């Protein structure tokens, strides 16, 4: 687990380290940039030791703490890695950080604390597997994940795999996967407090401590969040042809207050010479009003002033990892987890004709994951042969729909073979997936990486993936207006992509220059869509084939140590192949430009421009939300970074900051019936000692 000191050192050395890696690469032809070889070895990490890259000079030393070792990722995959500390003192949440990455759209169903789901390369929310410390946290009911329930302050990093991840994540990863990692103890004790507050009665606080006590490493964290959520929003009419629109005054979001308390505990210790055992638990309690849709014609705009929900989630996990186990593998990791979710929903009804709703749903998931990698030479190539076995049992206990259970078992085998000093990499693999009641599936995948020049990498992938329908889609009881469909078939998809990656440590005055561009295509068979089957009833159905095509461009550069520019653009074209109509919910393009000015570790100002293209929001694609540009800015200063302020010596960081989101106060919606806040200001502080 890296910490602030580690991070500060790492930031200061990153450019040099990249230069070093690049020089190594130039000389020896080894991998670079996001190569897994840059990750410290578990043995070293487990000891909390400083890991020195081979051939690096002292200034290029990278200091790390204990980090969950990562089995070698597929080298051909298109991956974005986010270090959450890059967003220090910016008041961002998980959804915002993910949504800024190339290829990723986050569909928000409101403001801070309101549900949000991740779409990768035009996928649905349920076609993305979200993992927390390697454990899938998608809802067994809907298949999607509400990332608003996660707290950025407790996370260390996120790794986004774009374009399907059948080998690594298995069932559900049609669009890709997001692997979130919680903060882990480092070599130096860390204490941290983050407090922020601002618009709409929103506050958030994070408390962290991580340290070692003899052979034991431990970390404990708390994250609290609350908001009144009472923002005012515009209600534009749907404009048709020459008809003048109806003007409706803005109204206030009601019954939108929410609180969330999350905490995590981690205990770890070495087990002999080679192994490392970690226990972690992540618990979240949330309670919120359920304002519903902005869709009615009543004075409240159809919002529900009375409904509420209360939820508890807990994820407990044991993990044991080891290296150099001989015949048993060179990198071994096994984990057991249990996940519990409970959701109480109450709605007494709004109008006199409504009938009260009260429901309780509980979900238990037990899972086992084993990851093993053997490294060897054969056929003039270096091989990393990986075996991944996963099994999980989801059990849903619901007073509305009865009790249901399903077992999934997956076995994946993959091999990363590197020839010509890693200039050519071939990464074939296959996953066998057995899903109770739905059958067995083989999911082949192959990737190729060509590295003709040290700073240029060409990647291509083709793979098959699938998503099993969720329990709600299958078994939701017939409520008259909505019901499940037990005859649903899984969604099956074929993903293909090709792209180039350029990375240069220096180019004239520019530093840390990187560029990535690629095109992708995803063909989905038997898309699952909620379809009206009568004037009054909807149920999910397989609607046939669909296709998503697009391109991604990402660019990053630093100019001196005071200026950093990040920009990315994703273009998307999606359509149902049977109707030719666009798939709803996907913006046709999304662009981000982020300019950071400042001296890292001391002060920074950040300006962001986030443009979202038109979003079709109806099944025909005929109703379009307008494109929008949202400007945001923040300014932060680390008082501990200025000796003249004479801060206590123990303070390593003392940031105070001001952020302003949606500066021009534009109306923002990702869905037709879900308004988002306008301009919002926040202040905060982050202190570490």
């Amino acid at each position, binding site marked *: 687990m890296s910490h602030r000191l580690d991070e500060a050192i790492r930031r200061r050395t990153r450019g040099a380290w990249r230069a070093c890696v690049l020089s190594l690469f130039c000389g020896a032809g080894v991998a670079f940039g996001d190569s897994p070889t840059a990750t410290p070895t578990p043995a070293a990490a487990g000891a909390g030791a400083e890991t020195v890259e081979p051939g690096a000079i002292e200034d290029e030393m990278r200091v790390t703490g204990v980090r969950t070792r990562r089995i070698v990722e597929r080298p051909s995959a298109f991956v974005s890695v986010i270090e959450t500390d890059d967003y220090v003192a910016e008041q961002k949440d998980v959804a915002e950080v993910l949504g800024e990455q190339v290829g990723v759209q986050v569909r928000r169903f409101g403001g801070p604390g309101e549900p949000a789901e991740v779409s990768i390369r035009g996928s649905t929310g349920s076609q993305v597997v979200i993992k927390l410390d390697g454990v899938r946290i998608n809802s067994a009911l809907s298949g999607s994940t509400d990332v608003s329930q996660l707290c950025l302050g407790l996370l260390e990093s996120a790794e986004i795999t774009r374009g399907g991840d059948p080998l690594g994540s298995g069932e559900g990863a049609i669009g890709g996967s997001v692997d979130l990692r919680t903060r882990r103890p480092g070599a130096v004790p860390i204490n941290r407090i983050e407090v922020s507050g601002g*618009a709409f009665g929103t506050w958030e606080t994070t408390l962290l401590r991580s340290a070692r006590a003899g052979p034991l490493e431990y970390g404990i964290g708390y994250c609290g969040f609350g908001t009144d959520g009472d923002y*005012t*929003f*515009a209600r534009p*009419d*749907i*404009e*048709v*042809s*020459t*008809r*003048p*629109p*109806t003007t409706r005054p*803005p109204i206030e979001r009601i019954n939108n207050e929410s609180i969330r308390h999350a905490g995590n505990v981690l205990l770890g210790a070495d087990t002999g010479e080679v192994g490392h055992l970690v226990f972690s638990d992540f618990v979240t309690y949330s309670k919120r009003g359920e304002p519903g849709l902005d*869709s*009615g*014609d*009543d*004075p409240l705009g159809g919002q529900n002033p*009375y409904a509420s929900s209360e939820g508890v989630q807990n994820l407990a996990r044991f993990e044991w990892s080891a290296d150099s186990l001989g015949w048993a593998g060179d990198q071994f990791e096994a984990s057991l987890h249990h996940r519990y979710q409970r959701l109480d929903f109450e709605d*007494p*009804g*709004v*109008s*006199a*004709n*409504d*009938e009260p709703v009260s429901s309780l749903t509980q979900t238990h998931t037990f899972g086992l994951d084993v990851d093993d990698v053997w490294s060897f030479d054969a056929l003039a190539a270096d091989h990393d042969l990986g075996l991944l076995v996963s099994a999980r049992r989801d059990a849903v206990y619901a007073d509305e729909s009865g009790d249901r259970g399903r077992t999934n078992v997956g076995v994946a085998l993959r091999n990363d073979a590197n020839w010509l000093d890693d200039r050519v990499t071939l990464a074939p693999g296959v996953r066998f997936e057995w899903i109770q009641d739905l059958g067995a599936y083989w999911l082949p995948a192959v990737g190729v990486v060509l590295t003709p020049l040290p700073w240029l990498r060409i990647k291509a992938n083709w793979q098959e993936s699938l998503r099993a329908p969720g329990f709600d889609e299958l078994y939701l009881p*017939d*409520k*008259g207006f909505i019901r499940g469909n037990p005859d649903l078939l899984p969604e099956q998809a074929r993903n293909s992509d090709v792209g180039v990656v350029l990375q240069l440590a220096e180019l004239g005055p520019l530093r840390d220059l990187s560029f990535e561009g690629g095109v992708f295509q995803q063909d989905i068979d038997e898309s699952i869509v909620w*379809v*009206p*089957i009568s*004037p*009054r*009833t909807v149920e999910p*159905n397989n*609607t*046939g084939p669909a296709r998503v095509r697009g391109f991604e461009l990402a660019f990053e550069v630093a100019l001196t140590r005071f200026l950093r520019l990040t920009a990315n653009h994703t273009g998307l074209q999606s359509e149902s192949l*049977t*109707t030719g*109509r666009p798939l709803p919910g996907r913006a046709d393009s999304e662009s981000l430009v982020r300019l950071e000015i400042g001296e890292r570790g001391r002060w920074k100002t950040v300006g962001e421009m986030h443009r979202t293209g038109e979003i079709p929001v*109806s*099944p025909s*694609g*005929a109703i*379009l*939300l*307008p494109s929008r540009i949202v400007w945001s800015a923040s300014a932060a200063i680390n008082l501990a970074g200025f000796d003249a302020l004479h801060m206590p010596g123990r303070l390593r960081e003392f940031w105070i*900051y*001001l952020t302003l989101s949606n500066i*021009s106060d*534009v*109306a923002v919606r990702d869905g037709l019936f879900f308004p988002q806040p*306008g301009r*919002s*200001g926040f*202040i905060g502080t982050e202190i570490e000692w």
Partner: protein
Amino acid sequence: MVNGTAPDRTTRARRSIPLWLGLLVPLVLGSVCEGTGSNRPGAITQSPVDPRCTPIGGPFPSGFDLLPGASDRAVAMRFIPAGLLRFDVSTSPPAPDNTGPVLGIPADSDGDGLDDAVAFRLAGFCPSLNPNCLTWPKVGSVHAAFRDVVLVTASGYEEVLFLRTDSGALLPIDVTNPADGGTHRAADHPLLPPAGTSALRTAVSTLTCVYPPTPIDSSGAVMVPAPQCDATRTGFVTRFTAATAVVGDLLFVATSNLFSSSRAIFHPGTLLIYRLEFDGAGRPIGVRPDVDTPVVFTTAFNPTGVTAHRTPGGRDLILVTQTGAIDSGGTLLGDSAVDVIDVASLRVVATLPLGLAGAAFGELAIDPGGHVALIGAESRRSLYAFDLAALDDPALYAPRAAPVTLDGRTPGFADARIFDASIPFELSRRPDGPPDGLCAPRTNVALNHDGSLAYATDWCDGSISVISLDWSLPLERPISRSRFALARRLDLFAPKTPSNFGLAAAPSLPKTRAGVPGRDFDGPDLFFLVNEPEGQLCAARVEF
């Protein structure tokens, strides 16, 4: 620590000033930064998905009608935001014809000075489990009863709204709640003005306490008296205002009285009766409950349509379509029927039984000659028909205790049924249409200008069946089924299979333009709603 010596208190305080300033200044700045998201809200736009259709601009329209006396103009009621849309239907697709912004329905829709939610709550109509309920009018059927005034039913805050067809504005009229007299009890109309008074309102409340002679609901259970009504009798409050009809100075309003949507239980069906007053131009200026007969109970459950009909003999009737109990999934739970109400006596004189037919919501289609009435079906791909000649029998209108059932089993009275649930007129299925179970059918029907052709929309198949009615031979009694024949099927829209989701589908509520196509007009002659994927008003020329 400076040079190894501890700073004194003053020095520490001075050093902390920048810190506190640093915290306070952003605090003040941050707290005032709350926008409304109203700068350049952008236009949410809707484009047509079919060249014959114009989008309504919302999820689905609640109804539409052609204006009397100007059959090239139609009005439709948009559901969200509620508002009256005008269309020029002389072209295909229909052209939006609103001259200004579409006016919404205000929070005080009936103009009684209180927001509807407040008035409803103060009147004590919120259920005990939800004493702070919020109620507002959810617009329903559209009835262009007059040249320049349209009647729109609303449920929730039960009422009939009066809207001007030119602007869509609510029309103020004089609403009276007569003093107790006859069978009228002023207290049974809690949202009308106080007893014996009048007030200028923009709607007439249909929230009424009624007292059925047999207080049994559609499940067969004995009803519990509503606390808002006369405690000495078993009464209930009318709900789900469904349809209107006007005959002379009488306004008839059907209320379905769905009691529990989750259990599909209906209270007895009712037809509320009001008296209208008009100005010299024939525009309504006043309305009040009929004192002598404020309500008529229907013989079956769930009245959903009201049709005014004048028999060839000149007798004015109201035909009330009763779908029967039906659940929200479309499962039929009770028999359908059409009640015949004599306008002169304001009583049910006869009933036309249909069996387990799921008679379609809405009006009957009656040919200009007054020979037959057709109606479609909920949950079936069928049409039903009656021989209206049976309604010209003077014996039908003689005083008697119970309505005559015109099923051929009542001695002395004809069997008016041509097609019913046992022998329906089946529409042909489209080969590429959805299988049973993937779509619950809904059939609606309209007749052309001379009654020689019927057009039946098929919700599931997206088709319009053209049925020929042969009037060339002398009429027999009852009318022979052989006069009805399926002429052709126009597969105008996509069948409602899952793979077609997103294409224009699910047509309903056909209406034909008055006049002879090709002689009186050149444009489209058939209009209908297309409900999926979004609401659209469509026009087609089907008769040449």
